[in-house]
């Protein structure tokens, strides 16, 4: 069964050969959205293949802590999909697509029960039902949870289902480009690198589902995994797909700040959900100034700005943070409800959260923007290309509610999987232009022929520093323009990014390719942020502090002759029966 030896065939640095793999539906990414899409597509009978950049089960979903939002009404019987819908629209600052929010609020409930039947083991109420906890800006206690490790349980459960069904998957494969049938403009192939061997792979496909997650790694202080480099957004854009609301980057209010090595690591909102209190260095419970009604459980954008304001006004701690205190809940309760947080602070910072306060500051957490999709199917503006999860845009508007992303990935993962499988049924294999393949191989291998070039790891650090410095929580025209200029400068450097070493598991090579994707993400974020001349949700402009109704538009990023163009589209109007559900703040 186990052998520590294996025969590896070495792939030469200039080797242009590639393996060919054929499937009906190619799913890119094996987080919650990708795995749920895979199950749906496979169950519908499509020849499905999952590829993912990291190892199976390591996707960023694993990091989700607090829970999955669904209006089961187990703890608060008054809860219903209608209230969940209203919360999502209101806290999204009316930028969300109403149809997506409707589908989401209704189907999240079924998806949670389904996940339970797949084997996920939720915490229980006294009656033996799935327990639900309070979270920021949710009207009722709504987050079904597994301690503070909901994401781990979710991904493991879906992973088990994929393995049980025998859905084929290839982990540690990085896709670089989606190619289209020259005649029909349909997505027909994708080139990737098998990371372990370094060999290239050409996937021939009838439909592709992007479930690649977000772009948090373009920021220096982030809770996101290494692989969250925004390659899905970049690949979709390169294939001609429209992006939407890219300026909307969520800063999670509470990230670790000390020690430096763990800066940005997430402190789950569940700490506040379980009664955690935020205070500044003077011991003042400052949320009373910013949202006296909801206090610590206000929306994430509000709490993040509040913490940021306290710190910049000099009321923060010595390390530039505020305090988060849960000690009053007692050791037993904390260890039971927040086991990961207890371990995390003890192991990384030497702090016992049952006795000491935590120091926290905002950290980049989520991209609300992404590839524009059709609400029912997750279809993008490129034929045969779908997107689900964080890479897709439309549900969360200007601010995502905690717990909504885990239900998002299940609801829309399933929908895209089914839609893609239905679309490809009976379809012939679309063609791919060999010239496209060859030119992509040129691009992919280019970093190996650079001599005396720049270090891509260093470029990644420069990108992240620039975004943190210029495109943070509070933005203005001057900073954004400076950030854009810096992106252009780094792009110049990136054309000389150099891969060193062999092809097998070559991180410098992959980083060269990722840097290009990250820069596209940066540019899309900055340009959209420059366009939106108001403050709404996660997007705050110090030079345009007001929120104005004329900005009830989605900012669409469109590829035009290889550059970025913008278009403003009014947010679609919801039908009156749904509008009647909205409970204004």
């Amino acid at each position, binding site marked *: 069964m186990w052998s520590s030896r294996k025969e590896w065939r070495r792939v030469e640095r200039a080797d242009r050969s590639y393996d060919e793999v054929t499937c009906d539906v190619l799913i890119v990414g094996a987080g919650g959205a990708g795995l749920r899409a895979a199950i749906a597509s496979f169950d519908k009978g499509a020849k499905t293949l999952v590829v993912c950049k990291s190892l199976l089960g390591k996707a960023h979903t694993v990091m989700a802590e607090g829970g999955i939002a669904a209006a089961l009404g187990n703890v608060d019987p008054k809860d219903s999909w209608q209230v969940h819908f209203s919360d999502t629209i209101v806290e999204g600052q009316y930028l969300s697509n109403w149809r997506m929010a409707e589908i989401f609020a209704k189907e999240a409930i079924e998806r949670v029960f389904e996940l339970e039947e797949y084997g996920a083991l939720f915490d229980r109420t006294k009656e033996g039902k799935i327990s639900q906890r309070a979270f920021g800006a949710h009207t009722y206690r709504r987050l079904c949870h597994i301690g503070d490790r909901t994401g781990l349980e979710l991904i493991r459960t879906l992973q088990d289902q994929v393995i049980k069904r025998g859905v084929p998957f290839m982990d540690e494969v990085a896709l670089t480009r989606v190619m289209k049938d020259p005649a029909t403009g349909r997505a027909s192939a994708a080139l990737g690198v098998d990371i372990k061997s370094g060999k290239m792979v050409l996937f021939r496909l009838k439909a592709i589902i992007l479930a690649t997650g977000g772009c948090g790694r373009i920021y220096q202080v982030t809770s996101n995994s290494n692989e969250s480099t925004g390659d899905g957004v970049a690949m979709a854009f390169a294939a001609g797909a429209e992006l939407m609301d890219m300026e909307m980057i969520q800063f999670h209010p509470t990230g670790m700040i000390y020690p430096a090595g763990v800066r940005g690591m997430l402190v789950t909102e569940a700490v506040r959900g379980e009664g955690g209190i935020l205070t500044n260095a003077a011991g003042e419970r400052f949320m009373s100034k910013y949202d006296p009604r909801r206090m610590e459980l206000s929306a994430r954008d509000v709490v993040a700005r509040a913490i940021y304001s306290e710190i910049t006004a000099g009321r923060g701690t010595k390390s530039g943070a505020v305090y988060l205190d849960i000690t009053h809940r007692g050791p037993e309760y904390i260890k039971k409800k927040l086991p990961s947080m207890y371990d995390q602070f003890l192991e990384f910072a030497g702090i016992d959260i049952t006795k000491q306060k935590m120091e926290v500051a905002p950290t980049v957490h989520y991209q609300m923007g992404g590839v524009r999709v059709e609400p029912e199917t997750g279809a993008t503006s490129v034929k045969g290309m779908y997107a689900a999860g964080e890479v897709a845009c439309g549900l969360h508007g200007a601010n995502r509610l905690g717990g909504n992303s885990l239900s998002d990935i299940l609801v829309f993962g399933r929908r895209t999987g089914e839609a893609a499988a239905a679309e490809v049924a009976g379809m012939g294999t679309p063609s791919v232009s060999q010239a496209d393949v060859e030119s992509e191989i040129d691009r992919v291998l280019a970093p190996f022929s650079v001599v005396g070039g720049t270090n891509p790891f260093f470029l990644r650090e420069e990108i992240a520093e620039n975004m943190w410095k210029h495109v943070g929580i509070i933005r203005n025209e001057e900073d954004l323009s400076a950030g854009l200029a810096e992106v252009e400068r780094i792009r110049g450097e990136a054309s000389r990014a150099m891969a060193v070493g062999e092809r097998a598991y070559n*991180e410098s090579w992959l980083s060269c390719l990722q840097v290009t994707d990250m820069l596209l993400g940066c540019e899309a974020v900055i340009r959209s942020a420059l366009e939106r001349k108001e403050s709404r949700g996660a997007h705050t402009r110090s030079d345009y502090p007001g929120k104005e109704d004329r900005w009830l538009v989605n900012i669409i990023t469109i590829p035009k002759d290889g550059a970025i163009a913008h278009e403003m589209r009014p947010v679609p109007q919801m039908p009156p029966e749904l509008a009647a559900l909205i409970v204004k703040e």
Partner: protein
Amino acid sequence: MSARASTTVRLKVRRGSGSDPSAARYDTFEVPHEDGMVVLNAIHYIQANIDPSLNARWNCKAGRCGSCSAEINGRPKLMCKTPVDSIEGEIVVEPMKAFPLVSDLVTDVTENWKVAAMMPPFTPRKPNSKEWRFWQQDVDRSREFRRCIECFLCQDVCHVVREHEAEYVGPRWVVKAASLDMHPMDSLNRADFMKNAAGLGYCNITKCCQEICPEHIVITDDAIIPEKERVVDRHYDPILWLYRLVTKDEEKLEAGVMKGLKMVFWGALLAPVVIVPMYYLIQALIR
């Protein structure tokens, strides 16, 4: 944790590629020390500032994903959870030895997916109600095993997996079996699988795995030993063994035991309800 006298950290990193095992070597790097620095930070510093050809697998950098498994000064650890200050002197970083080498600190752990596919999957019993109901203490029993982040360090440290190439699935997959067996709704008995295909008998409970688990799962005591007990119950209990010898039917045995239990249960329930009134009725009739 001891304070470091010098302001740099010295790392000795094993380098090599799977396609050319003879070229393995150790490189030594000096990295500036930073507060709270973990070994993975040092690796990143090397990549960005000294040698970009150094390869390591990582993802979350928060101890949640289990990607950055390595052997640090000979001990299986996550690089993201090992503070450089926890080690006196030179820090030696090597790839996991139980798995085939890919490049530098990266090994091929894909064999685990084949084992995962062998595992009898979660199979819920017929629920009593449409909405499943069970209690928190039933959840808690399985919960410990569900902390597993699949870093495969337990597989790495297991001498059976590491040295004997035996047909033993390894600690991770016993933990997996335990997590399924102790799910309150699961209906399967995995004892046959654990005894035969999984080779559970090869484990001789040296407890190395439970010592190094970064999630502090008490692997041997809480998962392996109970799983071994299940195998013993099913295969080595003398009464059951005799019964099986006679009937050659295990399913019938279980059904028979259940039937017996049910009869006792109903008997106990019916006794006061039926027999006692009857007794008084008869007494009254006799009088």
